[in-house]
Each structure stands twice: as C-alpha cells, then as structure tokens.
C-alpha cells in the first residue's frame, strides 16, 4: 500500500463528510458529519507521518483531536440553546441573517 491509497481514502471520507454537512438539516447531524471530515484529515496526517518518516504528523493529529473535542462540546451546547429557544433543530429555520 502506498501513500496514495491512504490519501485517496482520506479524500473520499472528507468528501462524504462535506456532502453530509451541506445536505443534512439537523444540527447535530451536521456536527457528526464535521467529525467525519476531521477524521479524514487526521487519517491523511498519520499517513504522511508514516510515509515521510516523521513524527510531526502524529503530533498534529493529537492537537486536532483536542480541538475537535472542544469544538464538539461547544457546538453541542449551541445546539441545546437553539433547541431551547426555538423548539427546532432544523438549521434552515435559523435564517434571520438574510441579506
């Protein structure tokens, strides 16, 4: 297996996640898809680290995970607030920032 295989897999995962972000309407689903994207990126980092014989990739993955955790926490808190105020989790309903 060479690097390209991993990169392509990573890209596919990323693409799937991105499509999910755009297509799904439930806020939490969107957050889930974001996680998919982040994972894809992590995968490619680790792959590079392995094939370029460096450790920096893995360290970066470390940090990405930390940030992902923080972001998931805050994002979910926002989802709760949204639900509390509007009784809906449809992201399309939060559209008062038009024009």
């Amino acid at each position, binding site marked *: 297996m060479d690097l390209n295989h991993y990169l392509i897999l990573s890209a596919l995962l990323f693409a799937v996640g991105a499509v999910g972000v*755009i297509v799904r309407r439930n806020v939490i689903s969107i957050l889930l898809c974001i996680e998919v994207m982040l994972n894809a990126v992590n995968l490619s980092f680790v792959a590079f680290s392995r094939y370029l014989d460096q450790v920096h990739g893995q360290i970066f993955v470390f940090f990405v995970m930390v940030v992902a955790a923080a972001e998931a926490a805050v994002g979910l808190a926002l989802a709760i607030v949204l639900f509390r105020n509007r009784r809906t989790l449809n992201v399309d309903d939060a*559209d008062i920032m038009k*024009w």
Partner: protein
Amino acid sequence: MTDFLWLIPLLPLAGSAINGLAGRRLSKSAISLVACGAAGLAFLAAAGVFYGLLALPPGERHIEQTYFTWIASGDFAAGAQFLLDPLSAVMLLVVTGVGFVIHIYSIGYMHAEDGYYRFFSYLNLFLFSMLVLVLAGNFLLMFVGWEGVGLCSYLLIGYYFDRTSACDAGKKAFIVNRIGDVGFVLGILLVFATFGELEFGRVFGAIAAAPARYPAETAGIGILSAVALLLFVGATGKSAQIPLYVWLPDAMEGPTPVSALIHAATMVTAGVYMVARCAPIFSRAPIAMEVVAVVGALTALFAATIGLAQRDIKRVLAYSTVSQLGYMFVGAGVGAFASGIFHLMTHAFFKALLFLGAGSVIHALGGEQDLTRMGGLRRHLPVTHGTMLAGALAICGIFPLAGFFSKDEILWSAWAHGHPWIWALGLTTAGLTAFYMFRLVFLAFYGGERFSEDTRRHLHESPRSMTLPLVVLGVLSVVGGFVGLPAWMGLGPSRFEHFLEPAFELALPAQAAEHSHGTEFAFAALSVAVAAAGIFLAHRLYVARPGRADEIAVRVRGLYTLLFHKYYVDEAYDRVFVRPLIRSSEDVLWRALDVRLIDGAVNGVGRMVQAQAHLLKNIQNGLARSYAAWILAGGAAVLLYLAFWRG
C-alpha cells in the same frame, strides 16, 4: 461717410433688443419711436453711405471692412466682413427705405394688438438680419443673414400664435426654407473645397484671374456649374420658386405689414440678390444659368395662372410675388443681372404698396379678405384706391410707371440674349399679370357693394400713419423707373445699369445679339399692348358685365377647380413627402429604433443588472447550509486551479 457702415445693421438690432427686452413696460408710442427711429436712422445712414460711395470714382466703388475675426481655425479664418459696392448699396437703400415706410405703416395697422412690442422687436430684428445678408462680404456671413431672415420670417408668420393655421404656416415656411438651405450650404462647402476661401472678393478674383482653370463651362457641368446649381437650390427655397414656393401663400397668415416687407419687398428677394452677387460664378456656368432662367419663367407663368382663381386678396398678391420673383430670376438667368436687380427694386415699391393697400382694405372692412365680399370701395377709401391703382398699373408694366421699365428690360434681355421661348413665356405671363391684378382692383374697388351692413358702418379710410406710406410708395412706383431709362429712349444708356456695372465686372458678359433701337421699341410696345389687353379683358369680365366671370368659371369647371386649388401641389407634396416622412419617423425611428432598440438596450442593461443581482443574492439567503456549500465550493475551485493551471 462709409465708415459708418456698421451702424446700419446695428441700429435695428439695438431697436430690436430694446423693444424685445423692455417692450412690455414701454408705452406704445415709446415702442413705435424706438422701432421706427431705428429703421429711420438706418435709412439715413444708408443714404449717407450711398452718397459716400457716389463720391468715389466708379472704379473704386468697392469697399471691404472687417470688424472682427469670427472663426479662426487652422488655415481657415472667416471674419465679420462687410462689402460695400453699388449692388449692396442699392439693396441697402431698398431694404432700409421700404422697411422704414412699412414700420410707419405698422404703427397704425398694429395699434390694437397686444403683442405690439413683440411685433416691432421682430421687425427690427428682421431688418438687422436682412442688412447683414446684404452687406456680407463672405459666404458665411451671408448665410448668417440668410438664416436670420428665415428665423424672423417664422417668428412673424406665427405672430398670431394662438391660431393653429398661423403656427403651421410658420413651420412650413421654415422647413421648406431649410430644404433649400441644404443646397445652399452644400454650395458654400463646395466653394470652400474648391477655392479654400469664402470671401467674395477673393473667390471671384481667383475665378477671374485664372480663365484657363475656370473657363465658361459650355461643355457640361463643371465645378462652377455645380456650385451655381447648389446655390440656386437655396435660392428657390428662400425666393419661392418651383419647387419650393409652397410656403409663400401660406405665409399670408402673418400680419399684412409682414407680408409686405418680408414676403414681397425684401426677404424673398434675397435669392435674387445672392445670384446677382455670385454673377462671376453663374455667368461662367451656362447650364446653371439656363436652369435659373427656365425655372424663373415657368414659375412666373405657373404662379400667374393660380393667381387668376384665388379669392383671398392677399393670396392673389402672394402668387403675384412668386410670379414677379420668377421674372427677376429670368433676368439673372439670361445674363442681365442688373435688370433683375432693377426689377427687384421697382417690385419692392409697388408690391409693398399693393400689400399695404390690401392691408388698408382689410383694416377698413374689419378683417374681411375675400374679394367676392368686397366691391365699390373706391368711394369709401379714396386714397387707398388711388395708390393701389398706381401700384397695379406699375406691376402691369404700363408706361411710364416703374414696372414698365424694369419688366421690359428683362423681356428684352431674354430675347436679345437668345432665349425666345423664355421671352414668350414672359410675355404671356405679363398678360396674365395684368388680368389678375386688375381683377383684384375691380373686384375690390368697383362695382356693387357685396359686404354686410355691419361692415358698411365700420368702413373708414385708414389713418394718416397708414395712408402716408401708401402715398410715398405710390410716388415711388410712378417715378422709380426713371433711374433706369433704357437706351432706346435716346437719352443715353441706362443710368441704373451703369451704376451697377462695377459690381458685375468680374462676370462674363452675356452674348447679346445686335439689335436696333427700333426693334427694342417695338418689343416694348408689344408688352404694353399685351398688358393693356389684359386690363381690358378684366374690365369686361368684372366691371362691364359682372357675373360673366362666374359663368365662364362654371363652363370650365375642371380647369377652374384646378387653378383654385393651386394645382393640388400642396396635397401632392403632402402625399409624396410629408406623410411618408411622418410615417417613417413614427414607425421606424420612433417605435422600432427609439423604443425597441435604444430604450430596449438601456432598459436591457438595467434588466441585466437586475438579473445578475437576482442570481447573486442567493449567496446571502440566510441558510447556513448554503453558506457551507459556498465555502466548500470555493475550496474546490482553489484546488482545481492548483491542479490544472499551476500544476
């Protein structure tokens, strides 16, 4: 004395400005004083200048004065340049003299009008423009005057602006003139293109100094003929010849003094003056001269026939003017430029007289202009009758009144310079002129009274301010011819012609066959006889046996209707030119081009912007998902760019 040349046009201009700007607040007498004063002083100045010219020996009677440079552009410079020579001097006297007389007349005629100040302001402005035209020393300045008189004509024809017919007539005059002006301007441009000059002196000098380069163009149409023909097109417009005469009868909508001054004595003669001024060009263009003479003769006859059947007194005089202008062009066209100018002068006298007299009649009858509703006025309007009779005799060419000398000279020149057919047309027209002129006189002043009882009570001879000018003009119509006594009378060559000689010295002399004085006398006698016959016939039909004319009219119903409706020329023009033009303006230019194309383009730009905005506004539709999509799209675009264009 000749230093004051510039005063002559400037005085009426000042008068016009004063009356135009401040006239509303001035009293009628003040307005009259300013206007007539300006005209009168201009006449005195013209007389002074004339005497100054006489004081010079004949060879030196050519003075040019440039006052300022009007246009200076590259190699070309045109100045405000006046030229004083015998020709312009004669015109000066005629314009200012007759103009002054008519100003006096207008005091009485227009006294009841609200726009009194406006009338006199325009009239003075007209004098200014005409004087500029006459004094101009180059084509450009002459054109300025040309346009100026056209403008004043429009303003004055439409003086009664609350009448649609008057406004239409004004527009018609201006537009038809404009058509002629196209030719005029093209002629001027051609002059400039050929000679690089617009000054009369230099252009004519160049022509005369290079006979090899500018020969008499007997073989066809060369540069000079082209110029001459184009200039003549302008003349047909301004001087109401075929085919552009149609505006003149309609111009009778203006007040009678206007008809007298502008459409009889001065403005319409501008074309004749212009041809005479350009004699060095015309005389070297035989084809153009032929055209001028033929058009003149045909117009003379044509207009005379229409005049036979008209009922409006002013219309008869209008067609008469067109006809007499034709005579002047005949004179110019056969090479007798001085004769044309001579007739211009005498015509100014008696035609102005006739118009003013008609005005007097109309004024007395409280506005009636229909000849069939007049009659027997000589008992009530003696002065008017007397002077109009004199004017009528003059126009018929009865010896020894002014018209005889001038008309006779033209007819004789036509014969002597080898145009027998034109002579024949002229002679026939003379007979017709006598007939319709005296038809007018008899219908108006003789016979039974055909007007209403109301009008009868109104009837009064005109005030002194109106009758005095009539008398003055009457005297001039009688003695005015004596300045040009022809050679066959045994008193030496014509002094008028001799005086004008220096003005035409650069023109090629016309080929005149040698004839004896006896032959000339015979021709003159023939003209008088024909005129007398016309008068006699008119007397038979309108005085001796009234009603006979109507019987004949019924018998030749078709011909009569044709003449009465002026050969339906106006209707023809309308059908052929005016309506298609209106239709194409409306349908093509307006609906298709302006609305669809231009508005469409402009609106289309707006619509495009709208459409774009319509598309672009979706970038900010408030949906978080679409924002995310745009972000990803941007990222994808960058990737693509890196992959395919930078990689």
